[in-house]
Structure formats: structure tokens, C-alpha cells
């Protein structure tokens, strides 16, 4: 075990996987010489050269398409899209092609392609460089989507994605690169579709993922001082979601608050609320509550963005409201 940042955990995991398997290569804008705009791929070009660290033109459709074509031809591409917002530029290749080829071909194709990208707001990067678009991806049968919140999960989920024979999308949160944690030096998998109980508690279950898992833990710490005992579930994967862990927890705590950075309407929270009501309705003492971004594009000004992105204090406020049944949940 060593203490690594999320960024380094990603970089290390990828280096080890590439070392072990020549079929893995990375393709994207400025991934080679520059090492990625956020430094995710730093140094890999020195080790693996231009053959395996492929800098491309600004051509997101063709970049993802290249990954798909190489994957059906037996390679295991890592396709990097600088910002999650650019997923939209490549959406046909992702949603109409990568996600569906295997099914349309009667099962005969294998698509071991991993898309890596950087999502999330909070850097005043405005509406086209700050989005959390996971719900759109989760809606497409055929894709798997993971959104780790710790260095340990970053490496473990990356390894699982690279070993998976389906198209996977790994979303890093731009504000989490510096977050540190213990990471084993050997290769290991964090199974896709397995949540983690990040904190055990009896009073209420907070379901979150990516950076909102950390914010939820901070909220739980704040509430512990008030005698409120929160359970925090870090989903880690958003497609598939580990609904069993969520339902089991809901049956114990009888209250659920779902937190995400994406807009509330038709977000993951809606799916989780629906499934919890399907599987744990009789156990609930309060409606499933959601803490999420409002229904607007991400604003540029820090003054507006601070009200837009959920944080520990807003999560804590919702948890208090959910515990106090007399009060209507808001937000």
C-alpha cells in the first residue's frame, strides 16, 4: 500500500495494465507528449512510445469510432475524451455504435473499449466544460459507467474496465485529482456494479457517487456531532447500479437521500428513488429525497456556481429535513 492521489492511482493502474498487455493503447487529444490536459497520462509516452500513446486530431467522433473499430478487431483501446461534455460530440459512436453492436450482431462482436473522461463543475469552466452527463450514458443499454471517488476505487475500477469485454466509461471528477488515499501497488479489481458502504450508520442512508460521495461523508461528519448517524453508500458504478446494497440499507435505516452533481430532473436519483420504492416501500419512513443540481446549465460566475453545485452543507440540510418528517424536503 502506498498513499497516492486519484490522478496517480489512475496513471499507475494504466501503466501496469499496459505493461502487462500490449493490446492496450491510449488514443485521444494531447494524451501523448502532453500527458493529458489534467496530467492523467503523464510519463506514459516515455514508457510506451507513440505507438501506444496516440495523439489525435480534434475529432471526437473518429476517436471513439477508432476505439470501437480497434476493439472489434481484437485490441483493448483506452479512448480519452478531455471533457465529459465532449461525449456529446461523439454520442453517435458511443450510443448508436459501441453500445449496440454486440446485440445487433447477435452477440458475435466483443467491444473491450474503455472511454475515460473528466466531468464535474466547480472550476468556473462554464456550461460546456462542467457537465455531469452520466444519466444520458446510463440510459443506453450496452454501456457500463463507473464514477470512482477514491484513489483505491480509481485504480480498481480502471482495471475492471480494461478487463471488461464491453464498452465502459470511466468518469473522473476534475476536482478530485488531488484526493489522496491508500492504494495497493499490485493490480486488483473493484468489480463494476458493486457499491461500497463508505460509512455505516443507522438513521438515514445517503446514496452518492463520485465527488458527491466525499461531500456526503463530510455532511455525515457534521451531522454526527448532532447525534445523527448516517450511512453513506458510494455507488462507484452508476451503470449497473448496486441496488441490492441500497435496498438492504434502506430497509435498515428507513430513510434515503440520494446525492448527485448532475441535474435533478431525470438524474440517477430518480432511478434510485423508483427502485427503492419498488423494493423497500413498506420500510420507508420518509419520501426518498434528492440533492442535485437545479435544472439549468452550469453557470460561469463563482457566485452562481456555488449555489449550483451541491455541497456538504446542503446535503446535511436535506438529511435533517428527511429525518424530521414534519418538514418538506427541499432542494
Amino acid at each position, binding site marked *: 500500500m502506498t498513499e497516492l492521489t486519484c490522478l496517480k492511482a489512475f496513471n499507475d493502474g494504466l501503466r501496469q495494465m499496459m505493461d502487462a498487455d500490449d493490446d492496450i493503447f491510449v488514443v485521444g487529444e494531447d494524451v501523448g507528449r502532453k500527458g493529458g490536459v489534467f496530467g492523467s497520462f503523464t510519463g506514459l509516452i516515455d514508457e510506451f512510445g507513440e505507438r501506444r500513446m496516440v495523439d489525435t486530431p480534434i475529432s471526437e467522433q473518429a476517436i471513439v469510432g477508432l476505439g470501437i473499430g480497434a476493439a472489434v478487431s481484437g485490441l483493448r483501446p483506452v479512448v480519452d475524451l478531455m471533457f465529459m461534455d465532449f461525449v456529446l460530440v461523439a454520442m453517435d459512436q458511443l450510443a448508436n455504435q459501441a453500445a449496440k453492436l454486440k446485440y445487433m450482431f447477435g452477440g458475435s462482436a466483443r467491444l473491450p473499449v474503455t472511454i475515460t473522461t473528466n466531468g464535474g463543475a466547480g472550476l468556473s469552466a462554464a456550461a460546456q466544460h462542467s457537465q455531469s452527463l452520466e444519466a444520458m450514458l446510463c440510459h443506453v443499454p450496452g454501456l457500463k459507467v463507473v464514477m470512482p471517488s477514491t484513489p483505491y476505487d480509481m485504480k480498481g475500477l480502471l482495471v475492471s474496465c480494461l478487463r471488461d469485454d464491453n464498452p465502459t466509461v470511466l468518469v473522473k471528477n476534475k476536482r478530485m485529482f488531488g484526493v489522496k488515499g491508500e492504494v495497493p501497488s499490485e493490480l486488483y479489481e473493484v468489480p463494476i456494479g458493486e457499491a461500497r458502504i463508505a460509512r455505516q450508520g443507522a438513521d438515514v442512508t445517503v446514496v452518492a457517487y463520485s465527488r458527491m460521495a466525499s461531500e456526503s461523508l463530510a455532511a455525515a461528519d457534521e451531522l454526527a456531532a448532532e447525534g445523527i448517524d448516517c450511512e453513506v453508500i458510494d455507488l462507484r458504478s452508476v451503470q449497473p447500479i448496486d441496488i441490492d446494497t441500497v435496498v438492504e440499507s434502506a430497509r435498515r435505516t428507513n430513510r434515503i437521500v440520494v446525492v448527485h452533481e448532475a441535474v435533478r430532473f431525470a438524474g440517477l436519483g430518480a432511478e434510485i428513488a423508483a427502485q427503492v420504492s419498488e423494493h423497500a416501500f413498506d420500510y420507508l419512513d420518509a419520501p426518498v429525497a434528492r440533492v442535485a443540481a437545479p435544472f439549468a446549465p452550469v453557470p460561469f460566475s463563482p457566485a452562481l456556481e456555488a*449555489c449550483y453545485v451541491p455541497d456538504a452543507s446542503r446535503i446535511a440540510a436535506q438529511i435533517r429535513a428527511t429525518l424530521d418528517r414534519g418538514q418538506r424536503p427541499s432542494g
Partner: protein
Amino acid sequence: MTAPSHEVLRDIHRRMVRIRLFEEAAGRIFEAGRMPGFIHLYVGQEAVAAGVCAALRDDDQVSSTHRGHGHLVAKGGDLSRMMAELMGKATGYCGGKGGSMHVCDLDLNMLGANGIVGGGVPIAVGAGFANKYRANGAVSVAFFGDGATNIGAFHEAANMAAALELPVLFVCENNEYAEFTPRDQTMAIDDVVERAAAYGMPGTKVDGMDAVAVFEATAAAADRARQGGGPSFVECKTYRYYNHHGVQTLGMKYRSDDEVKEWRDRDPVPRHEDLMVSVGAMTPDRIAAVRDEIAAEVEAAIEFAEQSPMPDPADLLADVYSGPADQRQPLPPA
């Protein structure tokens, strides 16, 4: 072609100096940590925006890029509202909602900077369609970088404009880099303008450090478009002085000092000033006076921006839609 009049030369100059001084100031403020987000500075490329926009009518539209400040200034943008926007203030062009990458002034027919590479190119084609539809004689300009010509949106838009014979100018600002990647690693042609031939539109390559050359090429292309001759492509060879974003190049060095110096030695602003003096369009004293006047305008813009309030959080949900937003709330608890 007749040489541009002295008045045109002075007009081009004013546009260039407004861009230069605004951008230098924005860069200083950004580097001092007093500006949120990230900015892509236009310094070095002034001759393109100024030369193009001086050849346009006020009702001609331009669509822009992530490196869009220069296009708005060249269209006559208000420096105070721009600076306020860059600082995220309520008085900015977008009320603080857009920032550097989304500055716009629809009253000036500047259809917005754009955070998505290539995203503005089809929009200019749409503006060109509207102009042809209304037969108003206006043209539209798509500004885009060399890197943007590698994205599908550019190719679809170029083909569409040519097929529909729309009055659109495709102005490529070829500064030889897309972020940190040199152009010759991302396309197998020597000149971006070669792409025009694939769509059956005329293309010219001009020295993008020479505002007069840019002006003349634009005037010719605009004339052609106004007379129903369809779209054209103008490649302007230029250079950005600063980093892809911000001022300083941190981390990987991707351009040699010699290369940067070589381009800076061909600075479009003093070059244009020398030309004006030599043809008697302006005296050195008058040039200095114009620079002082614009420097004062920039200072006032900074002052305005700094004094302006931040947006009111109550406005967070305003302007997601035109007209009243649907504020439907569920029924209160029974």
C-alpha cells in the same frame, strides 16, 4: 484591387489596438488570480479579427471560438461589459453566466464565443442561410482554428454552405497549434485551405499578421458572397503569443523560444502602424494618442468590472428558456 483608404487603415488599427490592450490587461488580471475559470487570449492574432471585421457590414454576423475575445472586440464590443463578464460579474455581457468562452453581443451580430471546437461553424452557416432567405445582402463569417478543421462539424458545415450556395465566409485562423499539438501532426496537408477545394469553394491563403491582406481577402470573399457567388474560405497564417490558455506556458514546452520570437518579430500591430505612417494615414503622435485613448478605455473597463456586483443567486434559474419558466411545483403535503 485598390488599396484600402486611410480611413479604413485607421479603422483597422483601432480595432487591433483595442484587442491588444484588452487582452494584455485580461491576461495580467488572470495571472494575478483575479479572474475565475480559464481564458484563451487572442494576442498575436489581432490582424485577423480586425482585418475581417473592418471589411464587414454591421449587419454581417460572425460566429466565434473558445479564443473569441478578439472577435467580439473587432465587432465593436463594449470593453466594460466584456471585462465584467470575464470576471463573472452581473454587469457582464452574459450576466456572469457565460464567462470568457461564451462572450457574445447579438446586437452587434457577434453570435458568441464557443466552448466546443467547431461548434460555431454550423451556426455561421445557419446565419448565412437566414441572410439568403431574407435576401438582405448580409454575409456571415465563421471564425475557427486550424485544429477545428479536423472535426466533423466543420466538414458538414462547409459542404452544406457550398451545396446551398450560402453567403458564408470560412475564416481559418491557422496558428499552427491545437492546444499543445502541432498542426502537421494532425493533418496530412500543408495548407488548411486545401480543404476548401473538396467542397467546391474558392480558397485563399493570406498572411494573417498583415491586417491589410486579411481585409482585402475578406472584402473580395464578402463581395462574391453578397452577389450570390456562395461561400469562400480564407486561411490566415497567424500565431498566438501566449499559452493555449492563460499567459504562461507551464509544464511541457511545445514551442521553441526561437519560433515564438520569430513570430513576435512580425507583430501585426506595429507593422500596421508603420504602414499607416508611411502612407500618411496617421502620424506617430496620433498613433500614440489613439493608444493612450484606448488604454484609458481599458482602464475604465477594469474599474467598471471590479466595481460591479456579482450576479444575484436568485437569477440562477433565469434564462434557461425564453418566456416564463415552468415553475410547476408538486402539491403541498395533504
